[in-house]
């Protein structure tokens, strides 16, 4: 009890002065950052898409995004290594019948979750959202199905994952031949604001969405186990 009180006092001693310093900060009237100004002025010229955040994530900082995919892949790989090396000692999860609320709700919501996640993935360059968010949503559908009926994703998801990840890196390397840098926008097709626009950038984001969705589905599958 005393330790908790002392901890609270110490935290307050750190955070109250910090808050007083931060609180003096006035939000600027316009973006003062040079990079922000550049992105605002040039997203349409460089990538022909309305969503600036997608322009930054996949276009200007595509290399970062590939690194992010690698970190996600490494984490999932480590996780599966831990599970598979302890296969004998890990107790199996035995599914009993789920409650009617979960069962019925999943059966009604399942197609809509999938539809909405695909919508989010393919509209990544037009509206808020994109590959990572849509992929996470796809995995939510898979998780619900696993919780209600004990179904696990098909074993072939790992091939889809490998293929989409490989294609992202391959298309990124092809960009080096055309433009001289990794993951550039070397094919610009479509008109501004249409579903097919933004050129190779939207293709990148759809592939990233596939990769993230299948990767997280495989993760759920490895948590559930074989039986």
């Amino acid at each position: 009890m005393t330790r908790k009180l002392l901890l609270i006092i110490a935290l307050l001693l750190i955070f109250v002065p910090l808050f007083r310093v931060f609180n003096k900060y006035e939000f600027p009237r316009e973006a003062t950052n040079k990079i922000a100004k550049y992105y605002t002025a040039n997203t349409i010229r460089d990538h022909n898409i309305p969503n600036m955040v997608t322009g930054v994530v996949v276009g200007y900082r595509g290399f970062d995004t590939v690194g992010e995919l690698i970190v996600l892949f490494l984490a999932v790989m480590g996780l599966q290594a831990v599970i598979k090396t302890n296969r004998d000692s890990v107790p199996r999860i035995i599914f009993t019948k789920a409650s009617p609320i979960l069962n019925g709700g999943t059966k009604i919501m399942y197609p809509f979750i999938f539809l909405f996640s695909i919508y989010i993935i393919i509209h990544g360059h037009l509206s808020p959202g994109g590959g990572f968010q849509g992929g996470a949503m796809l995995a939510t559908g898979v998780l619900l199905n696993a919780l209600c009926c004990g179904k696990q994703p098909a074993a072939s998801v790992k091939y889809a994952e490998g293929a989409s990840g490989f294609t992202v890196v391959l298309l990124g390397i092809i960009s080096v031949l055309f433009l001289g840098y990794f993951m550039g926008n070397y094919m610009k097709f479509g008109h501004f604001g249409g579903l097919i626009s933004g050129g190779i950038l939207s293709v990148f984001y759809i592939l990233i969405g596939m990769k993230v969705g299948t990767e997280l589905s495989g993760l759920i599958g490895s948590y559930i186990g074989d039986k």
Partner: protein
Amino acid sequence: MYFGAALFIIMIGIYGVATSKNLIKAFVSLNIMETGVNILLIMTGFVKGGAIPIFSSPDRLIKAVDPLPQALVLTSIVIGFATTALGLVIVRLFFIKNGKYELDDSIYHKMIKGSLK
């Protein structure tokens, strides 16, 4: 005011990490702390009266907030998810070896003797 909210969430997270012996609770507290840090990062790009960084037409420039912190926070959320998943699996391994989720004195003595493998 907004900074106060973000700092308060970080504070709750630190308190949870420092006081909970249950490892799953510690990871959840770490996630709460991360949410606070993400709010703080998003706020650095805020502009007074700024719109969301999405254009509605190609020839009208808008006064938008800074898109860069938002893109970076997207990365940070994904990394946070990955580390949480890995951490939870390691907690599960800990449970298999020791039969409990709590870090208490018996675990400490095992660590001292070097028998925790």
